[in-house]
């Protein structure tokens, strides 16, 4: 409880720290974001460099286009023919004799004869008009083989000045290229090509260019709709501005050149970094620069290409932005601390009541009838409600404990009395148990004898069963023998039938013989006196046949007798078999009965064994019981003593519980041991009787 009290104080601090911490996180995040914005601003130099690259790429495309135009013009057949014609005409005028001689040569190739009337100037002017309508180049020039301009041409491009120009001379020598070229007051993106005749000899030069001022201005106006955000391009060489996207009204070339000069640049500090800016007409410009080459006159100059953009307002107002942030931050900090303090106080104040009460409780002997006021539904009110409920429970519990300790004292006294009675009874029980044990031991011996007898009976029954089984198998054997004999007798009958057949055959033979003998007698009679001897033989044969016949008849009679007897024997044996079968069934029944009896006798034996075991166990258990009764005797003695001790403890418990106030009219009064029990429970006469 003390630990909880100590942590209660830290709640206020925790709230304060939480609010302050949140504010700090907010400030840090704000500062981080603003510095990030700053770092974005610092990237402006790179940003301009990228745009400069973009400009140069588009400028290169324009240059290629110009180059294509120049080459196309230089290879125009009319221009080539006219310029070649003019050159040849001039040559013929200079050397008339040679010209006449050549003209007379037969088979002269085309172009060597006198040229037809042709005006290169007209042709060029026509082409210039058409090209101007299509792409309006700022510089177009066609020079003949003597470097003289043909047709319309820009000012200051006479033969002399052209011959002094490095770019022109390179083109006239056959080079095809595009460069930044300064001619007169202006600078151009210039491209050119040499005009050659069929023999490959130069007959003129073509040059086409676009003003760099115009190119720069177009790029700047295309970069943004607002002038202040446009990217300006400036080409400067040797403190002189050659071309610029700035209008004369914004900055004159001299002022621009002066501002671009390295020593006139201004250094500003932004986000801890020093940045150089250009100041022009009261405005500051971020810039990036890149070295390049410009052909001016008879040499090529080193120049610098600048890209400049007006600076944004953010960096200028950085200071003005940071200060209010800090001031507001500090104000919010103080305000939040105050707010946290009030909040913490409102939480902690109601807790004080709980703290005081729990302190009292922790010292011991508190008031359990006290209740905390419950005013709302917030967490503290819930806490108060729960504590009240807990106190209700405690009060109820303490009251119960008080009553229970009173009852405990009484019960202990009763236990003591009951225990002494129990002790007496246990002594009596001990004697009786001893007697029972002796009786059970005798019974056990009797059961053992019974079990042995049952086992012997089982053995006799088993032997009887075996004898019956043998008798049964002997009867079965007899039956087999009888059946076999019956078969034999039946076979005998069949054989005698066969003998009958044989006898019949004999009888037939005898009959035949008799006939033969008769016929022999007849023949002998026919022979007269000579046949007498033969007649005697025939008579004898006849006699023999008669005897055979007689014997055969006797045999037949005997056979009939035998058949009758065998039939009787078979029938008798069948009866015998049936009787034996009935005997087998009866013996089987006897055997099964004997088996059942054997099973029963064995079961009786087993049961007797189990009974013997059980009675043995009972005897042992009775001895155990005897021991337990003995132990019970000493236990009851101990119980009497413990009952006394329990009564003393109940008094002590009652005294302790009565230190707490649990009802309005009651005062915490010690010495409960001396007091008579206020709510003595009904005496447990029933229990004692039990």
């Amino acid at each position, binding site marked *: 409880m003390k630990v909880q009290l100590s942590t209660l104080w830290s709640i206020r601090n925790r709230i304060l720290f939480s609010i302050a911490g949140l504010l700090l996180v907010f400030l840090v995040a704000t500062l981080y974001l603003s510095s990030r914005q700053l770092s974005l601003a610092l990237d402006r130099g790179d940003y301009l460099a990228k745009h400069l690259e973009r400009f140069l790429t588009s400028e290169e495309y324009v240059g290629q286009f110009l180059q294509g135009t120049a080459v196309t013009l230089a290879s125009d057949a009319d221009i080539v023919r006219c310029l070649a014609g003019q050159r040849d005409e001039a040559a013929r005028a200079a050397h008339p004799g040679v010209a006449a001689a050549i003209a007379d040569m037969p088979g002269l190739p085309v172009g060597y004869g006198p040229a037809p009337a042709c005006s290169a100037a007209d042709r060029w002017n026509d082409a210039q008009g058409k090209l101007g309508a299509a792409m309006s180049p700022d510089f177009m020039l066609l020079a003949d083989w003597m470097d003289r301009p043909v047709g319309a041409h820009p000012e200051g491009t006479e033969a002399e000045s052209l011959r002094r120009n490095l770019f022109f001379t390179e083109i006239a020598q056959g080079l095809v290229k595009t460069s930044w070229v300064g001619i007169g007051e202006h600078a151009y993106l210039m491209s050119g090509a040499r005009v050659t005749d069929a023999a490959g000899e130069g007959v003129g030069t073509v040059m086409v260019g676009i003003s760099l001022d115009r190119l720069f201005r177009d790029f700047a106006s295309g970069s943004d709709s607002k002038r202040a955000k446009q990217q300006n391009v400036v080409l400067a060489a040797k403190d002189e501005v050659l071309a610029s996207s700035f209008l004369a009204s914004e900055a004159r070339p001299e002022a621009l050149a002066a501002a671009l000069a390295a020593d006139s640049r201004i250094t500003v500090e932004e986000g801890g970094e020093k940045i150089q800016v250009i100041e022009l007409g009261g405005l500051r410009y971020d810039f990036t620069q890149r070295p390049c080459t410009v052909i001016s006159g008879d040499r090529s100059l080193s120049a610098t290409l600048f890209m400049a953009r007006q600076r944004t307002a953010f960096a200028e107002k950085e200071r003005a932005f940071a200060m209010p942030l800090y001031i507001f931050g500090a104000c919010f900090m103080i305000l939040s601390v105050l707010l946290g303090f009030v909040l913490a106080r409102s939480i902690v104040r109601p807790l004080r009541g709980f703290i005081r009460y729990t302190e009292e409780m922790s010292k011991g002997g508190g008031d359990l009838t006290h209740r905390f006021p419950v005013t709302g539904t917030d967490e503290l009110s819930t806490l108060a409600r729960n504590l009240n409920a807990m106190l209700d429970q405690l009060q109820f519990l303490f009251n119960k404990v008080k009553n229970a300790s009173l009852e405990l004292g009484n019960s202990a006294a009763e236990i003591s009395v009951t225990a002494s009675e129990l002790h007496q009874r246990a002594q009596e029980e001990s004697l009786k148990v001893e007697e029972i044990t002796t009786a059970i031991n005798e019974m056990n011996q009797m059961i053992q004898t019974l079990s042995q007898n049952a086992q012997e009976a089982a053995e006799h029954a088993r032997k009887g069963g075996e004898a019956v089984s043998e008798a049964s198998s002997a009867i079965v054997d007899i039956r087999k023998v009888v059946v076999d004999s019956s078969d034999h007798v039946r076979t005998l009958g069949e054989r005698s039938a066969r003998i009958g057949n044989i006898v019949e055959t004999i009888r037939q033979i005898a009959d035949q013989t008799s006939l033969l003998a008769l016929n022999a007698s*007849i023949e002998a009679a026919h022979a007269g006196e000579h046949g007498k001897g033969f007649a005697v033989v025939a008579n004898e044969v006849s006699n023999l046949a008669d005897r055979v016949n007689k014997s055969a008849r006797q045999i037949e009679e005997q056979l009939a007798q035998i058949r009758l007897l065998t039939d009787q024997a078979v029938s008798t044996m069948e009866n015998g078999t049936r009787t034996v079968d009935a005997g087998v069934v009866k013996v089987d029944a006897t055997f099964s009965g004997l088996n059942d009896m054997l099973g029963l006798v064995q079961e009786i034996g087993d049961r007797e064994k189990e009974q013997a075991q059980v009675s043995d166990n009972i005897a042992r258990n009775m001895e155990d019981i005897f021991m337990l009764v003995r132990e019970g005797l000493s236990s009851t003695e101990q119980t009497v003593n413990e009952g006394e001790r329990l009564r003393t403890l109940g008094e002590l418990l009652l005294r302790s519980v009565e230190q707490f106030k649990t009802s309005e009219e009651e005062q915490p009064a010690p010495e409960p041991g001396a007091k008579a029990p206020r709510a003595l429970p009904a005496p447990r006469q029933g229990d004692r009787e039990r």
Partner: protein
Amino acid sequence: MQEGLTTLSLVGFRIGHWRFAVRLAQVKTSVMPSRVTPVWLMPGWVRGIISLHGSIVCVLDLGRLLGLPDDTARPARFMVLKDGALEAAIPVHEVFRVPEIPVDRVEPLPTTLGPAQRELLEGTINTASIDMTARGEAEDILTLIDTTTLFGSPIVRALGASAGAVR
């Protein structure tokens, strides 16, 4: 009847219960009974004909001829009797031997017999003192048949004249 002989060599046969004897010399042979082919329009005592070693022999029912009661028992032998060229087979139920009998033992036929029987038979022999193997109902009396008398009787002769079947 042959003259000069003191004894008679006889063979006996039985038809039903009646026993007869005939001289051995008048017997051609004795054969096992064979199938008898009945002959159309013959008197009742003629059973039919048989083939005996390729010859046609008439079968006479002696019992019926003598007017004895019919015996349906199957005959055991055919006794083939002859008288010269005449032959006839008689179905009999038994053949038995008769010992030599003195001629004087032949006695005349009893007077009670009708003339029809008299002309067919020769005489009777009392065999009471003679050892006999077979004895019938009239045990001691044998009726002696003479083929000459039998075949020469008017009734048989009439048959032979009408049909010429009896040889």
